[in-house]
């Protein structure tokens, strides 16, 4: 299709590089340098979308990120990107784009019936209408979500890669328009590291879209020179296609860079988040033109005046043949003059002001453009495309005249883009003369210049930018003298007066927020219904809550509220700008942290062996641990049962490498250990180990584990797998901030040691042939530690037990872990050695009544509750001691650790089941405790459970009841929680 609306000359597009693209299945041509929007307009296409709520036909309205209407879907299959703004999609050869939110097609959308019913769909409609019956909301919601909305999320995994990078700079300049570019240049000349980010493909900002001159030459020439100089500076960098979307604390600014589009294959990365840390920030984000509220202000063919001039100047595209400009300010005349210069017939300038009389209106009149002063657009005609506007004097709507046109360029003044300034803590002030908010209080590390600061002349943008850049460099410590920028911006003086932003109404639809289909009537209704706070009116109507965050509609809405409430705009207040300034894809935020890389997977040195055996794994914190080693056809439970039997009757082998391990050394080591455990440790001799209970200062059990004394001033502490990091930080805290008297050094050595645990009556026979350590019970008793060699490897052997049977925990340097494991398996083969996983481990320890922190404890359990009172030291001081005598820490209301045996031995209670005293059917019942661990015990050949029960030790032999979610209440007897070998003969033998 030909580009009928491409101007014969002009624009920054490359006329030698035609590009072909598809929109809604139709092929069109564009040029390199186009956006999807400019290429569509070049082909005469305005209608590109259906609106969010009423499915009204909508056209391209803006020029860049402010676009509220032209949301399209780009790409196909898994690479679909919904809700892309056509105005920000860089055209590439082969680009595929589709319209959204319509059925069966963009031109004939059944959903548009809702527009006919729109009197029903005012603000709060859903809340008022879709009420009962209970549960019906689920259906209504489904219906509403089908009818309203924007793009569809792709349902396939994203094939593209997203990245994160970090950048550090002395001066970050946001926006490469005249203010930003001169700021970057002067900061760079001062010697500072400079980073200039801009969302566009090339620098220049509004200078790309306008026809200003600098030093008598086209301003764009100055842009090229300034950019070239900046690029020659060794410490200056520029990021194009990069949106700064959030300003956070201490000079941290988050940006997202999009890749240069490719026509074939995949981009190396699609989007990249830049985490920028800047000493100083110069915000030169520019301003966003404001529309005007008038009847029928969403007709396709209606667009911002600055957009119409931008399409002409930058892309060489006429957005229409015959234009009407609707204005309340002088800058709109620049747009009109540029359109006329490009060859668009300007039928009239409709100006709300009674007496536009400055240089620019005079120039327009000189060019023969009709100026209707004191007039307003009071209606638009056409369906999917504007055909004419109705204009009338403000005070006499009856004197309407119809002006045929296919383009209505609207300008209600400019709003400084204060978003990032507000993120950084700045509070805006209302400037009545501009009818806009401008910077008020200073923001942290940020200066704000150019039109973002409410300065709308090119000369001021250049001068202020240059000064701000130099000052930012000086504050960052760079004082090199530099030639100042001498720039003479030649521009006709504009009259600063701004007219009203609301035209008289004749009862038509008047949109405030085009994206969310919020009308002036909706806002007025909200006020009538009592939503007088700006934040309430916003949420009731959804005004400003679309993905464009009200970039074009926010200030308009404030003026409506101001009128409805009879308050000045500053009293109405503003809603809060929050990041992101522009929507950021989840893909970009996730970066490379997807799939296996979400959390780094920690594997033990023996992991490959487990995998080869077909082990089932379970995640434990960041670790993966072998849960069981099922044989072909065996279930996890059957495998665990077999593994338990082996560990009880012959010998099992367990990978305990994930245990937390802390190496503790120094002259104060023994005193430290004695203070952090509540049981006595001072008497522990080198070569011995002891099980320790660690309490928080609140007296509750925090962690547990075995600690061995390797030498007089040297300990090896083990912690739970999950508690390793927090225990380390906790002890360091005490050492560094309270116990400055102790000289002790902690080293986390969890990853330095591989641990294999031999457990079972044959453990000694398996280990014996491999080691030079004397394993005789007398020489190496329970809770002793020995150093020696195992399978030729340097090893530390701890005779501890978590199964209740004879057990050796063999530690070797991590790199030998697999060799140790294989040697033990080989040596154990004659004895039927069986590897066992965490499921069997849990069963073994539950049979023996050993606790697991986090199962039998939950941060509210003391050693007394667990029945470990005898272990608690009576004489020494330790962390948590004072808390153990607080009221409520003793007495009959405490829960005690007990065992439960169901009356039906085959029954295995669910973990977490609640315990009650009587089998009443009347609920709720007072709960006296809950099941903490529960297994089918292969050794006891019945279900066993551990539980915390109120005053449980005084209830031995009593029957309690466990109501089930899915069946009759279960009865169980309270017994000791030690089911297996209570005399410890097997463990200590």
């Amino acid at each position: 299709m030909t580009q009928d609306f491409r101007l014969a000359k002009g624009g920054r597009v490359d006329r030698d590089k035609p590009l072909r693209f598809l929109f809604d299945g139709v092929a069109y041509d564009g040029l390199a340098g186009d956006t999807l929007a400019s290429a569509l307009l070049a082909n005469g296409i305005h209608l590109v979308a259906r609106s969010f709520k009423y499915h009204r036909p909508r056209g391209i309205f803006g020029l860049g990120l402010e676009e509220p209407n032209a949301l399209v879907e780009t790409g196909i299959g898994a690479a679909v990107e919904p809700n892309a703004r056509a105005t920000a999609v860089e055209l590439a050869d082969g680009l595929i784009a589709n319209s959204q939110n319509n059925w069966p097609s963009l031109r004939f959308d059944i959903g548009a019936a809702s527009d006919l019913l729109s009197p029903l769909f005012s603000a709060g409609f859903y809340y008022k209408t879709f009420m009962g019956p209970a549960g019906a909301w689920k259906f209504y919601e489904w219906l509403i979500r089908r009818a309203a909305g924007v793009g569809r999320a792709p349902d396939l995994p994203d094939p593209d890669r997203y990245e994160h990078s970090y950048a550090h700079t002395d001066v970050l300049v946001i926006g490469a328009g005249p203010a930003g570019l001169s700021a970057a240049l002067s900061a760079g000349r001062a010697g500072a590291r400079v980073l200039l980010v801009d969302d566009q493909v090339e620098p220049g900002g509004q200078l790309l879209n306008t026809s200003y001159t600098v030093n008598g030459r086209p301003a764009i020439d100055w842009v090229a020179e300034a950019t070239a100089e900046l690029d020659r500076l060794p410490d200056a960098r520029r990021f194009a296609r990069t949106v700064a979307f959030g300003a956070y604390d201490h000079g941290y600014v988050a940006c997202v860079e999009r890749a240069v589009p490719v026509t074939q294959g995949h981009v190396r990365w699609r989007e990249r988040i830049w985490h920028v840390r800047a000493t100083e920030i110069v915000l030169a984000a520019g301003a966003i033109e404001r529309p005007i509220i008038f009847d029928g202000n969403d007709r396709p063919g209606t667009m911002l005046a600055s957009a119409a001039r931008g399409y002409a100047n930058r892309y060489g595209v006429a957005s229409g043949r015959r234009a009407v400009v609707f204005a309340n300010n002088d800058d709109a005349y620049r747009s009109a003059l540029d359109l006329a210069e490009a060859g668009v017939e300007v039928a009239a300038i409709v100006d709300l002001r009674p007496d536009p009389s400055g240089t620019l209106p005079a120039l327009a009149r000189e060019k023969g453009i009709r100026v209707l002063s004191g007039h307003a657009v009071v209606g638009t005609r056409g369906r999917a495309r504007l055909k004419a506007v109705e204009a009338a004097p403000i005070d006499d709507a009856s004197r309407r005249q119809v002006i045929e046109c296919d383009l209505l360029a609207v300008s209600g003044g400019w709003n400084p883009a204060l978003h990032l300034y507000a993120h950084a803590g700045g509070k805006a002030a209302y400037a009545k003369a501009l009818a806009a908010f401008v910077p008020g209080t200073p923001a942290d590390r940020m200066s704000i210049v150019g039109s973002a600061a409410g300065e709308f002349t090119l000369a001021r943008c250049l001068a202020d930018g240059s000064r701000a850049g130099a000052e930012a460099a000086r504050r960052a410590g760079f004082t090199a003298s530099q030639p100042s920028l001498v720039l003479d911006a030649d521009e006709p003086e504009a009259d600063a007066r701004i007219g009203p932003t609301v035209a008289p109404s004749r009862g038509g639809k008047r949109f405030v927020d085009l994206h969310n289909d919020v009308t002036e009537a909706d806002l007025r209704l909200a006020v009538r219904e009592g939503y007088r706070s700006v934040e309430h009116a916003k949420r009731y109507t959804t005004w400003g809550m679309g993905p464009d965050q009200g970039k074009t509609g926010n200030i308009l809405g404030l003026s409506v509220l101001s009128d409805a409430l009879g308050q000045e705009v500053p009293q109405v207040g503003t809603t809060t700008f929050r990041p992101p300034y522009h929507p950021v894809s989840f893909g970009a935020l996730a970066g490379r942290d997807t799939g296996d890389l979400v959390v780094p997977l920690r594997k033990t040195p023996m992991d490959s062996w487990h995998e080869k055996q077909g082990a089932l794994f379970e995640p434990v914190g960041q670790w993966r641990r072998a849960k069981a080693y099922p044989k072909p056809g065996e279930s996890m439970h059957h495998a665990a049962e077999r593994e338990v039997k082996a560990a009880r009757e012959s010998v099992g082998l367990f990978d305990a490498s994930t245990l937390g391990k802390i190496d503790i050394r120094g002259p104060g080591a023994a005193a430290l250990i004695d203070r952090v455990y509540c049981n006595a440790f001072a008497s522990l001799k080198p070569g011995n180990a002891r099980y320790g209970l660690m309490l928080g200062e609140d007296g509750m059990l925090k962690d547990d584990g075995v600690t061995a004394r390797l030498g007089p001033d040297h300990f090896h502490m083990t912690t739970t797998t999950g508690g390793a990091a927090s225990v380390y930080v906790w002890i360091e805290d005490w050492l560094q901030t309270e116990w400055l008297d102790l000289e002790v050094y902690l080293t986390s050595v969890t990853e330095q040691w591989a641990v294999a645990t031999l457990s079972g009556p044959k453990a000694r026979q398996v280990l014996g042939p491999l080691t030079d350590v004397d394993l005789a019970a007398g020489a190496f008793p329970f809770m002793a530690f020995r150093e020696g060699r195992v399978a030729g490897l340097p090893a530390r052997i701890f005779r501890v037990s978590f199964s209740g049977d004879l057990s050796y925990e063999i530690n070797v340097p991590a790199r030998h872990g697999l060799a140790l494991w294989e040697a033990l398996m080989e040596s154990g083969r004659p004895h039927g050695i069986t590897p066992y996983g965490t499921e069997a481990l849990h069963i073994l320890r539950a049979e023996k009544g050993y606790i697991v922190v986090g199962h039998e404890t939950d941060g509210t359990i003391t050693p007394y509750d667990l029945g470990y009172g005898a272990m608690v030291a009576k004489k020494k001081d330790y962390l948590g001691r004072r808390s153990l005598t607080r009221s409520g820490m003793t007495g009959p209301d405490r829960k005690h650790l007990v065992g439960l045996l169901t009356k039906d031995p085959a029954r295995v209670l669910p973990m977490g089941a609640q315990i009650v005293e009587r089998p009443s059917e009347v609920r709720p019942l007072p709960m006296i405790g809950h099941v903490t661990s529960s297994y089918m015990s292969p050794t006891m050949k019945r279900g066993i459970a551990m539980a915390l029960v109120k005053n449980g030790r005084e209830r031995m032999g009593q029957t309690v009841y466990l109501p089930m979610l899915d069946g009759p209440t279960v009865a169980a007897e309270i017994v000791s929680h030690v089911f297996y070998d209570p005399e410890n003969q097997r463990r200590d033998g």
Partner: protein
Amino acid sequence: MLLIPCPYCGERAELEFRYGGEAHFRRPDNHLEASDESWANYLFMRKNPKGWHRERWMHIAGCKRWFYVVRHTVTHRIAAAYKVGDPWPDLPA
């Protein structure tokens, strides 16, 4: 994300640190004889001010040292960072 001036390593991004809450709350002297009330105060009560706050941070991904920071809880400005045992810098006006 804050930029925290570790007194040992210099300015580093917040993600290298672990927060430790209010600083300088005092463990009662002779704590084993402390009243229930003063012990409960020590265990559970913290100031949570709107304004300047002395607080504890640990450089967990760096030097692993605990230290103190004077931070404004509204603006997040950091006025000072100091080591354990250093004299306390004055709170800004």
